[in-house]
């Protein structure tokens, strides 16, 4: 049986896998980071967790060794996203035993999303340029895709900032509100782009161009605000 799940939220993914395990489906593999293969088995035999590796691809030998010692098996690695498995009888998977190391881990994961969002923004700008240079409409489809991807990345940055606050026992930190403002700016900027993108030959083109320029400016400010969240 194959199931599809695409989420950046590792707790959500782990809960999903553990639910399947309780219902008697064991994970046999994962492809492309989002297509999971299951097989029938004893209910609740395994417990799963998702972890974020310190390497861009896969897991280091040292970490794999430590994990094996505590009975955790690295089943799959999609870039830095690891699926970990342990015999349920041996207890739950507790990777981060103190708030400081958990906070450090959240910050590392958050940095990954900040970088991805910045890359998506650059890709979006390149697609806009390509659309104009080639005088075609199809690069603008990628503009929408890249813009949407950047938005989802920033959402993760906000979510992780909130999680960081909870872990460190502080509330209402600047990071979270800055993250939300950043989301708002990116969305508003993106919407400003849309008239120019969707109707390149309409009579209101000069106004739309101006709006698009302003939109890009808003997105850039939003991006800088996000990168600077601590």
């Amino acid at each position, binding site marked *: 049986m194959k199931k599809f799940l695409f989420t950046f939220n590792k707790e959500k993914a782990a809960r999903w896998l553990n639910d399947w395990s309780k219902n008697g489906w064991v994970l046999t593999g994962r492809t492309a980071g989002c297509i999971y293969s299951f097989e029938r088995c004893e209910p609740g035999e395994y417990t799963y967790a998702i972890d974020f590796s310190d390497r861009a691809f896969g897991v280091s030998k040292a*970490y794999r060794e*430590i994990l094996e010692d*505590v009975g955790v098996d690295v089943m799959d690695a999609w870039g830095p996203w690891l699926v970990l498995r342990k015999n349920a009888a041996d207890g739950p998977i507790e990777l981060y035993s103190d708030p*400081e190391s958990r906070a450090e881990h959240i910050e590392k994961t958050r940095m990954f999303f900040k970088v991805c969002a910045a890359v998506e923004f650059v890709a979006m700008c390149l697609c806009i340029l390509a659309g104009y240079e080639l005088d075609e409409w199809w690069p603008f489809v990628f503009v929408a895709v890249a813009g949407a991807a950047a938005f989802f990345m920033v959402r993760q940055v906000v979510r992780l900032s909130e999680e960081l606050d909870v872990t460190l026992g502080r509330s209402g930190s600047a990071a979270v509100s800055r993250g939300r403002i950043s989301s708002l700016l990116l969305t508003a900027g993106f919407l400003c782009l849309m008239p120019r993108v969707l109707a390149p030959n309409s009579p209101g083109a000069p106004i739309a161009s101006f709006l698009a320029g302003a939109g890009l400016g808003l997105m850039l400010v939003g991006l800088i605000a996000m990168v600077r969240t601590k």
Partner: protein
Amino acid sequence: MAVQDTPLTESFFYILLALRQPRHGYGIIQDVEQLTEGRVVLGAGTLYGALKTMQTKGWIRIVSEQQDSRKKKEYALTCEGIQAFRTECGRMREALEAADKFGKNMAAYSSEIPAETIFGNA
């Protein structure tokens, strides 16, 4: 000699103490559990992150690693690592001495302090 600005976390302290003799990862986890009588059980992620940081700081190094053998990586302290541990002990000793010296009679106030007292009104 490295100057240490911030206190070590409890996990870091016990990992350094566990490395009073070279150990591999699981050995560290077991020893720390024993030292704290089961109170501190290091997570795999916590341990790995700490070992990486300590290697970067030059506090520990890897010994007895053979590239393709089944032998596990063992970690051992360096002079800087021992120094970091001693500095932390000094910090904690100073804290406990202050507590012993001045912390005998501490006044507790409930939350019902009159507003006049807090804001200095006549």
